């Protein structure tokens, strides 16, 4: 299965009953898959008239208590920012898949990791954070979609699956677990708009006009995001113990990086990988520990330098080197090896 199809099937297996999408490459396999499978399951698929309409349909579906999902690629995700800000302000759970392509502007359909800032720093107006999950394989994309729906419901927060064109288009064997790895208990959605039968009316709102009420709302959101930051950081290590050089990469770029690490080790350079799985909340502490005793780390990204800023925040006392390309450029195994070899000469 391709990553796109696998993420779509994972959503169905997670009980997603509503999907709205708009055509954009390289994620078109998701709406095509959903159009077929959601119908088979008696659930809702809508090809929306626009990205804006799609995300706002998801807003409505979520407000009714349903598990809902949207997917798009970079330019389309930019258009969805209005809706994502409202989802956040209204505390509505939703899953949004971004199969990133290269920008800025229309860019092109090649793989990119240039929407990291947008995903991890809110992206739309107002103070808010999206839980941002970054799969590095088709299998992990399935896991993270399933986890994402649970996280969304538990925290009443939008989730971004920050995939890229390589993950979306890549075909790999995949297994679908019966449950997500999330082990906290989900409560019933007593806030949902289902009709005020036998209860006071519910309202979904992010507008608070009375003095001080919006401030209190933001303080409540701050506490929620602090809780997420403290309990939902995820990351993976590969050969990081005892490494002389630590390379930080995520998503498809981490896949390329492990190949470079294996070749470097064959040549006697002890390289290791730190791979954030949650880009927000970023695993700062874990990175600090992984890099303990090291003088320098290398960050590799399909961007002009976005995640590298989080690495610098975590490792203010270390040299943070960067290898990155945007516009469809993908740092290659050879380029990574060459960069590491050059760094070794410095010491």
């Amino acid at each position, binding site marked *: 299965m391709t990553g796109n199809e696998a993420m779509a099937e994972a959503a169905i297996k997670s009980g997603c009953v509503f999907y709205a999408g708009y055509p954009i490459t390289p994620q078109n396999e998701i709406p095509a898959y959903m159009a077929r499978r959601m119908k088979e399951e008696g659930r809702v698929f809508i090809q929306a008239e626009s990205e804006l*309409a799609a995300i706002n349909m998801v*807003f409505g579906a979520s407000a009714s208590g349903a598990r809902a999902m949207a997917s798009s690629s970079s330019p389309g995700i930019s258009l969805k920012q209005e809706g994502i800000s409202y989802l956040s302000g209204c505390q509505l759970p939703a899953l949004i898949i971004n199969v990133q392509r290269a920008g800025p502007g229309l860019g092109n359909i090649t793989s990119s990791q240039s929407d990291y800032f947008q995903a991890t720093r809110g992206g739309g107006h107002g103070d808010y954070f999206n839980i941002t999950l970054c799969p590095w394989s088709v299998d992990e994309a399935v896991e993270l979609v399933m986890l994402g729906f649970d996280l969304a419901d538990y925290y009443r927060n939008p989730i971004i699956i920050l995939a890229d064109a390589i993950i979306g288009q890549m075909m790999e064997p995949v297994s679908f677990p019966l449950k997500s790895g999330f082990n906290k208990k989900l409560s019933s959605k007593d806030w949902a708009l289902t*009709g005020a039968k036998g209860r006071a009316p519910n309202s979904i709102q*992010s507008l608070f006009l009375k003095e001080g009420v919006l401030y209190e709302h933001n303080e409540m959101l701050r506490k929620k995001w602090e809780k997420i930051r403290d309990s939902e950081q995820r990351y993976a290590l590969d050969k990081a113990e005892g490494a002389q050089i630590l390379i930080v990469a995520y998503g498809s770029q981490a896949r390329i990086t492990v190949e470079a690490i294996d070749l470097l080790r064959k040549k006697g350079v002890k390289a290791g990988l730190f791979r954030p799985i949650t880009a927000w909340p970023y695993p700062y502490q874990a990175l600090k520990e992984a890099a303990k005793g090291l003088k320098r780390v290398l960050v590799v990204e399909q961007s002009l330098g976005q995640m590298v800023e989080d690495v610098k925040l975590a490792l203010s006392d270390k040299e943070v080197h960067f290898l990155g390309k945007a516009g469809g450029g993908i740092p290659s195994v050879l380029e990574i090896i060459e960069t590491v070899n050059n760094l070794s000469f410095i010491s």
Partner: protein
Amino acid sequence: MKKFIRPQSLKDVDTHYCSGCGHGILHRLVAEAIDELGVREKTVGIAPVGCAVVAYDYWNFDVSEAAHGRALAVATGIKRCLPDNIVFTYQGDGDLASIGAAETLHAANRGENLTCVFVNNACYGMTGGQMAPTTLIGQKTTTTPLGRNPKFGEGWPLKISEILALLNGVCFAARTSLTSPKNVRETYSCVKKAFSNQIEKKGFSIVEVLSPCPTIWQKTPVEAMKWIDEEMVKEFPLGVIKG
């Protein structure tokens, strides 16, 4: 004899609307129709962006906000997940006919089984009186200080209900006003029809209501009603357009 009492679908709260504003009357008509059809406990309303943004403070049923222009997309999401509930939007002219024109056209064209109450007051009220798509030719607003003039590239009043009536997905389109007891009764009957169409799963219904905004129009409430009767209806004729 029928007693004049507060509908169950309206909360017992003070109004924040200006004197002579049409929202108070129309909120009540929507509430009365919902009570009359016995669907209060399964109704979900979508509040607009504009003066009626706090509609959930007045209506005694579930209400969601929506971003400016997106009410019908939000309503689509809710209704598709809860097809047996009654879902409606309450939108102004800027919301429905300008920033939300695409959402309006396509929800209607999909034949979403929804009710749309469209408040046409020929201006943006909440933001201080800018030109709306429905602003009349010659009407002065903060953004058409010389009066709306197609020769300045400001276009013509947009007749969205007539446009929607052309679509197969639309089962009912009507334009009414609030300027007299007769017109209020006619509005009530169209609003009720737009909700019963949804109960009967007939498709998309829209009721456009010409509604006074004395504050922005800089008129007394009585003059504002007169302006609708004498000027607005020339551009926006009353009556059932379809259905």
